[in-house]
């Protein structure tokens, strides 16, 4: 069984739940930007939640199936067309050998997840099939899929099509999207006025938004607390002695445009960070398009953990609803 790539879309990559354990060497965890959507797509086609599928950003690919399969598309809202006939999102649907799956224009969100019964079966690299393009690792030759690629699909038992995830379990982002942030790291490096301004201002997603990180603009520049530059840090007030970056951490080079690091994060560098987007809201970032408005909302660790546990309950709810 294989998927033949007729058109790859804008940037479609093979992703799973990532490769933990190599961040100390600069190799990030990677994997689906919107983890919950990837898990859901896999559940709907009877796969292990950690199976590999496709992550398509802004535009869907065009794929031809060599054998029968069950397919589900989750995440972004995008018309799903099987031989021209529209299929429901967040629902497993049957595909016959020779049929062609393609997509219409994106309506909402940014990334669609395509799972196929059996899962994409390219060779794992460091324990994961996720594509880390910067390091040419995983996926197909470490790159996005291209026209003419044949994507191998693993064996699967008979999967009943028709499973669906109810709308109340799907996450809809509000406008502006609220991203909850635990302040910390080098938060003390900016003035109290700048701290308040960061949370008061409305930011917009900048065009530089990808798997490594999302840049934001539109808020006021952050003023720094005066200091004498520590040895080895560099002279700019936003410089630190190169250190590690947490996933979700918010660095602000020069104090102007915040960058939130995502699944393909650089593991470290010389820019100070003012806090970290909490784990429960990382998926939301993966569904943001450029120019969309965003508010950063300050939370405590207690609230962050509560939000995390709420997300786990939603995931558990999905599993239970599919029996």
């Amino acid at each position: 069984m294989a998927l033949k790539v007729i058109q790859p879309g804008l940037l479609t990559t093979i992703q799973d739940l990532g490769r933990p354990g190599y961040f100390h060497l600069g190799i990030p965890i990677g994997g689906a930007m919107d983890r919950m959507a990837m898990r859901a797509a896999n559940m709907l086609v009877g796969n292990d939640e950690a199976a590999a599928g496709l992550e398509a950003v802004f535009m869907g690919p065009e794929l031809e199936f060599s054998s029968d399969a069950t397919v589900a598309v989750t995440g972004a809202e995008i018309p799903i067309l099987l031989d021209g006939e529209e299929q429901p999102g967040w629902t497993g649907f049957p595909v016959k050998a020779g049929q062609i799956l393609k997509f219409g224009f994106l309506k909402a969100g940014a990334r669609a997840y395509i799972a196929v019964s059996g899962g994409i079966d390219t060779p794992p690299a460091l324990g994961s099939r996720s594509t880390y393009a910067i390091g040419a690792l995983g996926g197909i030759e470490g790159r996005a899929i291209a026209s003419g690629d044949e994507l191998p699909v693993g064996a699967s038992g008979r999967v009943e099509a028709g499973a669906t995830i109810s709308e109340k379990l799907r996450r809809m982002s509000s406008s502006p999207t609220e991203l909850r942030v635990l302040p910390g790291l080098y938060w003390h490096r900016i003035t109290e006025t700048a701290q308040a301004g960061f949370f008061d201002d409305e930011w917009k997603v900048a065009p530089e938004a990808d798997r490594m990180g999302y840049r934001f603009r539109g808020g006021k520049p952050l003023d720094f607390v005066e200091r004498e530059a520590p040895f080895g840090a560099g002279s700019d007030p936003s410089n630190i002695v190169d250190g590690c970056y947490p996933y979700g951490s918010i660095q602000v080079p020069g104090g102007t445009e915040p960058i939130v690091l995502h699944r393909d994060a650089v593991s470290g560098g010389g820019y100070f960070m003012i806090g970290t987007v909490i784990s429960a809201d990382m998926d939301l970032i993966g569904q943001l398009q450029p120019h969309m408005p965003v508010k950063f909302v300050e939370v405590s660790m207690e609230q962050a953990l509560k939000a995390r546990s709420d997300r786990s309950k939603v995931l558990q709810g999905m599993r239970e609803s599919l029996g």
Partner: protein
Amino acid sequence: MKTRYSFGGDEHIFVEVDEEMSLDAFFKSLSITGAVADLNINGVTEICPANASFQIKFDPDVISPDDMLNELKKLESAAESSEKRIATRIVEIPVFYNDPWTHETLMRFRERHQDPDGTDLDYAARINGFDSAEGFIEAHHSNPWFVSMVGFVSGLPFLYQLVERERQLQVPKYLRPRTDTPKLTVGYGGCFSCIYSVRGAGGYQMFGITPMPIYDPEQKVSYLKDFMVFFKPGDIVKWKPIDRAEYDRILEQVEAGTYEPKTAKVDFDLEAFNADIDGTNRKLMEALNGA
């Protein structure tokens, strides 16, 4: 040195051992991260040592953030008294300084540089008080370097020169980062040298290029067959200046699978180093040259 702990969201603890760079801070960070690894704490998913700081990623569903923090604080006091000595290796890395490829790239991004009319090497030489780029290049390769962090992208080493602070070379990063850097560029920012393991964006000044791959996801390079990343924190590096002919020769050897980096096993003791820097470096070089 004052250790500062901070949570990076609900999944990370960031620990700044010191605000400024020093080998003492590095060794303390290495000692604590080593102890975390030895303890095999349930819920710890990533242990990342850095130059003068480190980071632990954990699963808060398995270990609570406060418990994780307390575990680290317990290890800090033990690290104070632990020996600052490691068994490591010294590796000779050939560098073609002032090469045509980084030169082409730095000219392309001149408007992002502090000195749009010069080159990165000329600028670095001038602000560090050298009369010429040649003098600066000599200072760059005449004493060995210590890999104090691996990261940014795949297997990229940050290196700190094994000399006293007065002799450290310092340069700022580009005013605005470049969108391109040739693969295997030898770069410089702050007090750190680096080798860009892959082609891509970068903000460090560019001085030269090495023909020796240090990251190979396909693991075809002879000395990267066991693992795709060459460097680890604690490695010691000696740059060896080479010319175009030698660069081409090494490239051919790498292609043919016959290139082996010149390497020797050494012990590095921070106290001995601090007591006699030139003597320690001489011994390191004797070990390398005897290899």
